[in-house]
């Protein structure tokens, strides 16, 4: 059966974004673009120390500045119904909301100035001239007590393994042991965290960027002591999140408090340099890899130990070792994590948390082992191909990784790669290197709900509080809805990005389309069943007596399954019974039984070419080919963009991003977009993403895996390996910068 027959006309089509016209004309309004009547401006003052307390703020100077309305400090800020330090669920991260004068990290909010104009509030904040009682700080990885965390990432076990690693290492004929450092990274979505908040008694209307509207609503309800239904969060357009907007952050809540404080609508926008602290980051890691193998490259042992850091006041542990539990079939596996505390803002999920930092270490180590064994990097990966999930021995729900390796290799021309480094140069004398990395990311699902409404005019409405942060929900959820209802996509309206809609879960963890898409699909099937029930019970309908299961929906009509010529339009069915519409809800969540039986992951293979100046050490990625398998592809046009974006994040991890903390003050020394490097257009090479076909009957009814994070994994390791291949120098301190090649 072809895709089209099975799922109708929309899924699988490379439609351009339905939100495209709004985004290219400026009509798309982001949170900070809203301006309720009477809006005033709030600006945060943030701490210049990383530990201690604020002893003085020159509030009088700020208040005396023309246009300043009020100054909100720990002395007068609204008290909250619940302590922002109360951890009543694992994802309630502690927040600094002016409830005391303590300072726990640099750039922590310490006051908010509200002004008639942005200029007045900005000047007022500068006039506060804070004085501090500073305590000594520690921001280095592994400084102080190192301990084993209870859990890592989103509650995963801190250690997991199988077999006897020591015996596996002893039995090995080749071994490597190496440590790889990855740098602290900050999400830096182009849209800063912001709030436009308006109170009406104990009801709040809030424009704020969030990846999870209902989670935000729940947290705010607790902090302000009001029912969740009193809170209306609106975010139709979200200017990037990458994990930093999964949970509402302190600056966003301070805007809401400021609105309460002055009794007027308030806009607070975080300044770029203020985003290096209170809105999360990916912590630095030091990962020690011990690999042992027989002469033919079969892994006898894989030991992956991660040391990372978290804040002094809260726990989030970058789960770098998790991918070693799923990826390569080693005879024995150990994955462990340790953590130390530092005077930094609490780290948080950042695009491919754990997998991104872990992948660059594992892929580098595997190539170091391949060198010991004189094996081709592709050969050693195929030799250790996991036919079942290594530790659990569960079968994969689907896994087309072998096809990814093959198709990528062919397209890239991998077969002609010389085994030894420094063998290739281009016409200008630059060293050329080729590298490979395996991409992997779990095909998770959260919980979500959607509502489908079929209207008498032959159109339909799909509603869910899902979020589009660029991945394409505005388009693909309409495609899924259209096919579920048997309607052309242009007759399906979609409403998302509003907390008054059914809970849409979280746009994160590469779960958005799988979760919301499943909810939308199930809602459409339920709505069609409602419609069918009307028709088959109606003697005037050509479908009378067909039974609910005896009809199918296509082209805006229900038809008898056994006689498609007998059919009736949605409009006719509803009009005859005098109904304006039928509506139904559907749930999206993973099937617990399937998820127990099968391991569910998306995979890919990324091939990279770099060129390195032999005299200057300058590195440029010149070619990237990724081949990815992630189940059913709802929209290849937009999925390709997700892969490209992920691969660029891989370039960024491998070569660019590095937050530098001053060990004495604990301050971020490069907290701006000129000095904290992310790739610009000229850093990005010609790219290709091959969509490898993969059918997954187990992951969810539509067979959808996530694609948002897959591309960053694999890519960074491929680049690190390509740099080695170009130069013969193995850099184990990521990002790889030219100084590390010249040293």
């Amino acid at each position: 059966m072809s895709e089209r027959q099975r799922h109708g006309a929309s899924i699988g089509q490379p439609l351009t974004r339905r939100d495209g016209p709004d985004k290219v004309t400026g009509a798309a309004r982001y949170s900070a673009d809203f301006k309720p009547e009477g809006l005033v401006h709030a600006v945060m003052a943030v701490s210049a120390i990383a530990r201690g307390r604020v002893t003085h703020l020159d509030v009088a100077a700020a208040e005396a500045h023309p246009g300043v309305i009020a100054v909100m400090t720990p002395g007068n800020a609204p008290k909250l119904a619940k302590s922002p330090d109360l951890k009543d669920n694992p994802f309630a991260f502690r927040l600094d909301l002016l409830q005391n004068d303590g300072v726990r990290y640099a750039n922590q909010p310490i006051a908010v100035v509200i002004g008639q104009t942005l200029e007045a509030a900005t000047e007022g904040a500068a006039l506060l001239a804070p004085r501090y009682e500073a305590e000594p700080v520690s921001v280095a990885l592994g400084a102080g007590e190192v301990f084993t965390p209870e859990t890592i990432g989103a509650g995963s076990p801190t250690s997991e393994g199988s077999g006897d690693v020591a015996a596996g290492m002893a039995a090995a004929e080749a071994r490597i042991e190496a440590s790889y450092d990855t740098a602290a990274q900050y999400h830096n979505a182009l849209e800063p965290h912001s709030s436009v908040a308006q109170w009406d008694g104990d009801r709040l209307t809030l424009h704020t960027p969030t990846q999870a509207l209902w989670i935000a609503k729940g947290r705010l309800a607790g902090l302000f002591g009001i029912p969740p239904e009193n809170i209306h969060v609106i975010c139709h357009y979200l200017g990037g999140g990458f994990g930093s907007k999964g949970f509402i952050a302190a600056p966003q809540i301070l805007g809401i408090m400021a609105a309460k404080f002055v009794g007027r609508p308030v806009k607070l926008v975080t300044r770029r340099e203020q985003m290096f602290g209170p809105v999360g980051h990916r912590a630095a890691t030091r990962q020690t890899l011990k690999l042992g193998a027989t002469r033919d490259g079969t892994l006898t042992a894989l030991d992956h130990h991660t040391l990372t850091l978290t804040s002094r006041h809260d726990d989030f542990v970058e789960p770098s070792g998790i991918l070693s539990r799923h990826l390569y079939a080693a005879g024995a596996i150990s994955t462990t994590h340790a953590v130390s505390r530092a005077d930094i803002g609490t780290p948080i999920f950042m695009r491919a948390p754990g997998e991104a930092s872990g992948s660059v270490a594992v892929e580098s180590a595997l190539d170091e082992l391949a060198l010991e064994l004189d094996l081709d990097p592709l050969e050693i990966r195929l030799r250790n191909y996991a036919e079942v999930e290594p530790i659990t021995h569960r079968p994969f729900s689907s896994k087309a990784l072998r096809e990814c390796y093959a198709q990528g290799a062919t397209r890239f021309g991998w077969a002609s790669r010389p085994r030894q480094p420094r063998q290739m140069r281009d016409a200008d004398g630059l060293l050329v290197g080729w590298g490979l990395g395996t991409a992997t990311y779990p095909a998770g699902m959260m919980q979500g709900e959607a509502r489908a409404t079929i209207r008498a005019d032959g159109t339909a409405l799909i509603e869910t509080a899902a979020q589009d942060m660029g991945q394409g929900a505005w388009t693909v959820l309409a495609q899924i809805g259209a096919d579920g209802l048997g309607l052309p996509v242009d007759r399906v309206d979609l409403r998302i990005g509003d907390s008054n809609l059914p809970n849409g879960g979280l746009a994160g963890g590469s779960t958005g389309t799988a979760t919301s898409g499943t909810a939308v699909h199930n809602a459409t099937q339920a709505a069609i069943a409602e419609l069918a029930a009307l028709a088959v019970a109606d003697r005037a309908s050509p479908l009378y007596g067909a039974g609910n299961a005896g009809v199918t929906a296509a082209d805006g009509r229900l038809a008898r399954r056994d006689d498609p010529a007998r059919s009736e339009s949605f409009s006719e069915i509803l009009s005859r019974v005098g109904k304006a519409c039928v509506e139904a809800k559907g749930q999206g969540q993973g099937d617990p039984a399937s998820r127990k039986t099968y391991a569910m992951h998306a995979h890919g293979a990324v091939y990279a070419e770099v060129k390195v100046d032999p005299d200057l050490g300058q590195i440029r990625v010149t070619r990237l080919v990724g081949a990815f398998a992630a189940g059913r592809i709802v929209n290849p046009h937009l999925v390709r963009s997700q892969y490209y974006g992920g691969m660029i994040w891989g370039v960024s991890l491998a070569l660019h991003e590095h937050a530098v903390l001053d060990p004495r003050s604990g301050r971020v020394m490069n907290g701006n977009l000129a000095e904290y490097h992310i790739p610009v257009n000229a850093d990005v090479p010609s790219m290709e993403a091959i969509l490898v076909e993969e059918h997954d009957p187990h992951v969810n009814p539509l067979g959808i895996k996530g694609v948002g994070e897959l591309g960053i994994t694999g890519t960074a390791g491929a680049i690190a390996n390509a740099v080695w291949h170009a130069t013969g120098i193995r850099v184990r301190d990521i990002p790889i910068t030219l100084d590390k090649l010249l040293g």
Partner: protein
Amino acid sequence: MSFPITLTVNGTARSLVLEDARVTLLDLLRERLDLTGAKKGCDRGQCGACTILVDGVRVNSCLALAVSHDGASITTIEGLAGTNPAGGDALHPVQAAFVEHDGFQCGFCTPGQILSAVGLIQEGQTGGDPERVREGMSGNLCRCGAYAGITEAVLAAHAAMTAPDVLPGRQLAEDAA
């Protein structure tokens, strides 16, 4: 102290009295003229999200004080469709190319990218060379990583706008004049 200035914004003459000399062009557009298409990503000229055309030239509006641009002609993303050489309300060729080639994801940097692309094409320095387009567009950061689509879109728009039956950038140049 107040500062009277006159600007032509998207073809319409605007006489304004600023009460504050610190107002940037970006904050003037966003906070006082309700033209929120230009975005504030860094407020110090590092990200390019605030790019607009001032007298036909691309400018980081967060670094431009409004009072120092008295008399200038400004094009923002909201007014770009009106400058379409084909006339009417149709999308400008650069806007259409960004949709067609998926030159964005979240869309936050997009107004700046598009105006930067319009400016770049008018500068006439790149021809159809992708490397020069990438270089010329490197003042506009995109964190989602839509650069491949952006480059394709700029090349496609460049080709469309410099085709023999279209006068390159003429309408914009006239607006600026």
